């Protein structure tokens, strides 16, 4: 018998036993649907992680004062990180493109005419713009000239511009940072959410020298931003910087660091938090329901083999080979699981859309869950179909006919 005819036979027999087919379908269908929904939610989380990491800078490191294993913010009470440390890193660690020291103060009151707003104020060098890949969209950024002359100029973040100026043009206007007057020389591009979940656009940047001597009266740095040439070198460079700073701060074992180095990997881990483990666990549980669905499929197929002994015997008697019987039952199980995959994929897609529309759960559909679903369905069909099919093929024609 031609394989084509055998396959057709398998599919036809599914059509005639609708109820049985439906039950065989249901397990695979529910499992795949659950898999699609859960993976879509996991994908959304992962995208958020990637977006935050990109905002931080995939090739960046940040050296911040204050020990411990926590991630930012920097500890404002630790005053040991000095401008000389930044110089030393730039000179002694290879393969770094930018070393940008900065000072900052949170929640400084800014005033422009009647408007008031509290924002972070950052004292920066001109290479800060390159270090964060963050240029001025209007006017110009901070230059080395501004830093050298301690000039009172500032560049505003978008949120600050909106809060202080509304729709009016901010350039060359005079605002107060704390009690000191500054001239607005530019506005930064929009940046969005920081890795910690704050608004990155609620900030003002001013020259670092002006900040340290005229505004905050501080000698120490709040952080050093470092960019590397090569992502491969990042772990090694992190180690080199750590050794260097420990030495410069006279920290001997077993004393702990009085600084931390934040890496993109650290940021990803922080944003991902428990959700990584959770989504792996949920995917595994959805996979488990697929296995249970497979067991159900196998069980029904086994019953169907017993029920159709006569039919099998007859077909063997009129010339069907064992291979044909095997193929017929495998076709049944495979087409059922593939159909289950198809319907399950559709249901999963629908549920995901519904979730996004009606709840605050973020979910992103990509091709991966569908591909994985297809592979799983094939595996389930083959794995759980094989045993019943072999059992059917092994039946002795004479005995089966009786």
């Amino acid at each position, binding site marked *: 018998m031609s394989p084509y005819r055998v396959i057709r036979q398998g599919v036809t027999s599914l059509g005639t036993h609708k109820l049985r087919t439906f039950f065989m379908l249901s397990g695979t269908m529910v499992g795949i649907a659950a898999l699609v929904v859960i993976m879509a939610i996991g994908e959304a989380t992962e995208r958020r992680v990637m977006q935050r990491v990109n905002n931080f800078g995939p090739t960046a490191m940040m050296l911040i004062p204050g020990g411990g294993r926590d991630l930012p913010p920097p500890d404002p009470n630790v005053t040991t990180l000095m401008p000389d440390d930044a110089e030393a890193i730039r000179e002694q660690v290879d393969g770094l493109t930018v070393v940008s020291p900065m000072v900052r103060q949170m929640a400084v009151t800014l005033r422009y005419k009647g408007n008031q707003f509290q924002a972070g104020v950052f004292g920066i060098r001109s290479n800060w713009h390159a270090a964060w890949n963050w240029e001025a969209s209007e006017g110009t950024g901070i230059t080395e000239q501004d830093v050298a002359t301690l000039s009172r100029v500032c560049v505003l973040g978008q949120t600050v511009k909106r809060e202080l100026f509304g729709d009016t043009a901010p350039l060359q206007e005079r605002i107060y940072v704390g009690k000191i007057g500054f001239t607005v020389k530019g506005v930064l591009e929009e940046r969005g959410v920081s890795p910690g979940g704050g608004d990155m656009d609620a900030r003002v940047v001013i020259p670092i020298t002006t900040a340290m001597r005229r505004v905050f009266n501080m000698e120490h740095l709040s952080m050093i931003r470092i960019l590397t040439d090569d992502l491969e070198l990042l772990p090694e460079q992190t180690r080199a910087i750590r050794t260097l700073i420990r030495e410069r701060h006279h920290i001997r074992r077993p004393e702990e660091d009085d600084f931390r180095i934040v890496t993109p990997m650290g940021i990803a881990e922080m944003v991902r938090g428990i959700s990584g483990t959770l989504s792996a666990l*949920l995917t595994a549980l959805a996979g*488990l329901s697929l296995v*249970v669905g497979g067991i159900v499929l196998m*069980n029904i197929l086994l019953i*169907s083999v017993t029920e159709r002994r006569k039919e099998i015997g007859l077909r063997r008697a009129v010339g069907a080979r064992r291979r044909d019987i095997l193929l017929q039952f495998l076709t049944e199980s495979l087409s059922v699981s593939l159909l289950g995959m198809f319907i399950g994929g559709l249901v999963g897609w629908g549920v995901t859309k519904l979730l996004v529309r009606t709840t605050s759960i973020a979910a992103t559909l990509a091709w991966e869950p569908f591909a994985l679903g297809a592979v799983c369905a094939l595996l389930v069909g083959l794995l759980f179909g094989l045993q019943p099919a072999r059992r059917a093929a092994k039946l002795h024609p004479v005995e089966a006919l009786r």
Partner: protein
Amino acid sequence: MKFSRNLRLSSRILMAHKLRTMLSVIGMAVGIGSVAIVVSAGQGTERRILQSIRNMGTNLIVVNAGQTRIMAGRKRQTATVTTLLPSDAKAILEHCPSVALASPVVTKKLTARWGAGVVPVEVVGMTAEGYVIRNTTIASGRVSTPEEGRAKRRVAVLAPTAASNLYDGNDPIGTRFRLGRVPFETIGVTEPKGMDANGVDQDDVIYVPLETAMRRLMNVPYVQSIYVQAAGVDKLDAAEAEIRELLRQRHRLYGRPDDFSIQNQATLIEAERETVRAMTLLVGSVAGISLIVGGVGILAVMLLSVRERTREIGLRRALGARCKDIQNQFLIESTMLASTGGAIGVIGGIGIAYLMPLLGYWETVISWPTVGGTVLFSSTLGVVFGLYPAMRAAHLEPITALGAE
């Protein structure tokens, strides 16, 4: 027909179809087992978190200087705030009727040195009331007296981890060591407290009198927190409100936001419990999907077996069995399938839940009401998924059934 005879008949039929029975049971067992594991892991997490919150103290309220923001899942202070003073603690004790005890607290990370040992350690400065509020009990030696505090005496009480790190097995009582550059005398060692809710060791701490810490170690006139003990569990919320009003008045905050934040143990417990429960519910319901798939499997097998046994049913009806007898027989079959699966699943689940803490640190609680509930639930599923096939079997016309194939 008697129930026991029905039972015997059903079990004999199930045994006759070993493979079919086994597969149905496995499907059910996997579903029930995963639900059981998830539930016990959830309860374990809940118990661990609640225990660590209770370990912090009885009826505890913590007032922190500055607003804390939750960043990356932990509470953090955003800036140094110098407005919370020891006199605030005194005022809270005097003017808030729902407050039983109050102790100002300062902390700083310092290096402790003894002999060759150099260890970084958290130094906590607090009054004698602080020990009572935080449930910190002394294992050997004594607590510092208020007089020692007033005289700014350099005496220290060590928590067990700090003591063993610094002294490496030697008896610490009566010895002198240095915190930073300042010499201290060890006068006591506390009982161990274990980890806090964030998994940080609470025993890597050295306690010194508040005044000594403020004057000799940190040189600050302000404190970071005030530990408060409410007069009773039911007074926690009242105490929080009183403290807020008092501090706003004392700090002259008219219209401005609080320059302190208050953590109340009751709300903390409630919030943590909610989080864990929501998580357990989410994971549990995904685990429940396999349970439903397994149940549908039983439904399918029962339906197919009704069809297979149409003649048998017809024969039994002809010989005097009533509709109800047929229905009961099939119901018993499906319930037996489901509850056997449930029992196996629960045993497997308990086994894994028991092994989990031994292999990793995911704590699990095996609570017998939950186990019983799960088994009962699986039997109920058997009834639910068996009802339709059983009714279908019961309503077969005897004549047509006998005539079938």
